[in-house]
C-alpha cells in the first residue's frame, strides 16, 4: 500500500475505530507522515527518536478523542494525503515546540533557530489593491525565497508559463506604480 491508496481507505470504518482499517491506514499513511515529519524537523538536527515520537504524535492526534480530528476531514475539499501532510507538519511543529519548552540545552539548539536570519528581509508594504494576493505570493517566492519558476508552478498547480505571466503582470503594475519603464522597454 502507498500514499495513493490512502484515498481508498474506508473513512467511516476508520473513524468507527475498526482495527483492520486503522492498520491499513497506518501502512498507507506512514511513508507520508514519516517524510513530512523528517522534512519539518530536518533543520533542527533532532535524533531519530524525536522523529519517531513526532510521527507517533501525528497518529495519536488522529485517533485521539474518538478520532475527532479525522472526523473533521472533508474528502470533498481535499485528498486525504494532502490533508494528512498538512496535519503532520502542524504536529511536527507542535512536537518541536513542546520539546524545546521542556529541556533544551542552549548548545543543542541550532544557531539558525536562535539567531536572527542572516539574510536581510524587507518588510514589504504594498498599497492595497496594487497587486493581487497571487501576484504577491509569486513575487515573494521568486524574489524573497529565490525559488525557481517551476517550483512555484508545481505548488500552485499551474504551468510555468502562467507563473511567468503572473510575474510579468505584477511587475507591470509595480512599474506603473513607480512610473518607471521596464528594462526591456527601450528606456
Amino acid at each position, binding site marked *: 500500500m*502507498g*500514499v495513493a491508496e490512502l484515498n481508498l481507505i474506508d473513512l467511516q470504518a476508520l473513524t468507527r*475505530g475498526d*482495527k483492520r482499517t486503522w*492498520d491499513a491506514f*497506518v*501502512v498507507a499513511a*506512514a511513508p*507520508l*507522515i*514519516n*517524510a513530512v515529519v523528517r*522534512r*519539518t524537523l530536518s533543520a533542527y538536527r533532532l535524533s531519530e527518536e524525536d522523529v519517531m515520537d513526532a*510521527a*507517533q504524535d501525528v*497518529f*495519536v492526534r488522529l*485517533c485521539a478523542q474518538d478520532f475527532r480530528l479525522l472526523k*473533521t*476531514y*472533508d474528502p470533498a*475539499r*481535499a*485528498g486525504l494525503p*494532502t*490533508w494528512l*501532510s*498538512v*496535519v503532520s*507538519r*502542524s504536529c511536527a511543529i507542535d512536537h518541536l515546540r513542546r520539546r524545546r519548552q521542556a529541556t533544551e540545552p542552549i548548545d543543542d539548539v541550532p544557531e539558525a533557530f536562535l539567531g536572527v536570519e542572516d539574510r536581510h*528581509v*524587507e518588510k*514589504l*508594504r*504594498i*498599497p492595497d489593491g496594487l497587486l493581487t*494576493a*497571487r501576484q*504577491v*505570493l509569486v*513575487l*515573494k*517566492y521568486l*524574489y*524573497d*525565497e529565490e525559488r525557481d519558476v517551476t*517550483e512555484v508552478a508545481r505548488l500552485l*498547480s499551474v504551468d510555468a508559463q502562467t507563473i511567468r505571466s503572473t510575474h510579468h503582470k505584477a*511587475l507591470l503594475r*509595480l*512599474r506603473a*506604480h*513607480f512610473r*518607471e*519603464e*521596464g*528594462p526591456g522597454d527601450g*528606456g
Partner: protein
Amino acid sequence: MNTQRTPRSDKELWRNLAIQSPVAPVSAPAAVSEMDLAAWLEGRLTEEAAGPIEAAVAADPALRRAALDLADILGKPLPAAPERMVVRARALVGFEAERTIASGGLFSRWLFGRSRHALQQGVMAVAAVVIAAGGFMVGGGLSESLARQGEGHSATETVSTTSTASNEVSEFFAGDGI
C-alpha cells in the same frame, strides 16, 4: 541634464516597494485552517476563496516554505517508513474486544446489549441450571455429611457414655478397696 532614470532590475523594484511605499498598518492575514490549506495546495479553491489563503501564505515565510515542502513531498515517490513507526502506530487502536475490556465494560455491555439478547437468555438459563444443580449437589452432600456426622456423634456419645460409666464403676470399686 539627463532626466532619464536608470532602469532598475525587477528585484530592486520589488525591494524599492518596501522603501518607498507609504508606511501603513498591514492587516494580519486570517489564520488558515488545515483543511483550507490542503484544499489550496490541491488547487481546488476558486480564485476568490484562494485569495485569503494566498495572502496568508505570502505573509508568513514559514508557511511559504511549508507549502513548497509539502508540494514537493506529495509530488514524488516516498521511501518506506521505519517498521517501528508502523508497529507503534498500529498499537494505538486495538480490536473492539480489547478496547471493551480495557474500558471495563465487557460484562455490562454483554449483559445489556440488544443484539445478543437471545444468546444472553440462553447463557443465563444454562447458568441458572448449573447453579441449581450445584446447589442440589451441595445440599445432598451436606445432608449426607451431616447424617454421617450425626451417626459418628451418636457412636462417640455411646462409647463416651460407656467409658464414663466404666470409669465410674471402677472408681466405685476402687474407692471401696476392691
